[in-house]
């Protein structure tokens, strides 16, 4: 199943790994910030009776 990458395996696999790390970092950070902000806003709205 795995294609034969020959002498360029390092460059090709390195590119996919680096991209996966960078994109996963962006997605993870975005989701974490979203959840944190949603919770903080819900708490503030509940405290102030504001919806």
């Amino acid at each position, binding site marked *: *199943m795995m*294609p*034969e*990458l*020959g*002498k*360029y*395996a390092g*460059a*090709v696999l*390195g*590119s*996919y790994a*680096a*991209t996966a790390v*960078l*994109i996963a*970092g*962006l*997605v993870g*950070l*975005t*989701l974490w*910030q*979203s959840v944190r*902000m*949603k919770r*903080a*806003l819900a708490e*503030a*709205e509940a*405290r*102030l009776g*504001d919806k």
Partner: protein
Amino acid sequence: MSIWEYANPKKFMALSAGALPWTVGLTVLLLATGLVWGFFFTPDDYRQGSTVKIIYLHVPAAMMAINAWIMMLVTSLIWIIRRHHVSALAAKAAAPVGLTFTLVALVTGALWGQPMWGTWWAWDPRLTSFLILTLFYLGYIALWAAIEDPDTAADLTSILCLVGSVFALLSRYAVNFWNQGLHQGASLSLDKQENVADVFWLPLVVSIAGFILLFFTMVLLRTRTEIRSRRLKALLARERVA
């Protein structure tokens, strides 16, 4: 109905909440299809060998790095002209996404360049303008973080965005302006002679569509977070006054 109605934060939140499940699903589907197709089911290039598989990451990321800045330019102009807060927040939300794509393009470009050109980096017009674009992204994000008043931050970052647009366009057209350097011309062109071979072209187009949707999804999510953050600040300010 006017398009400006969506500049209303409540309308934007309602519309984006309905759109997000679809954009997430389509992003996963297109990225998985394009990358699996490109990685597992396309042949090696007769000159570049298996390194041609990097094209499915490098080209979409580089395209979106530039297009993200263009989107920030448009939303910044809307902020400057019409003072719609959602547009300023959308520009702010897009910057980390654009920066990530720029880093992906630079890293995959270096990894591709080393075996093909014999060097990780060259002070080639396209590479250099891309590096400057990266610095503009960092400066833009830092400027938003450095200024307390959100309207002042939006004003100043919009001006920075206008200036940075020169380098975004240079990154796109550097190869045409200065017909020199190591970097080849566009991989996708309206001129069929200049395009990559058909066997690479289709999965590349699917990957590009996946990257476009990834950008769109991330910007929607991040803009929603920015709108919530703005509302939280307003509530806390009201609490302090009361």
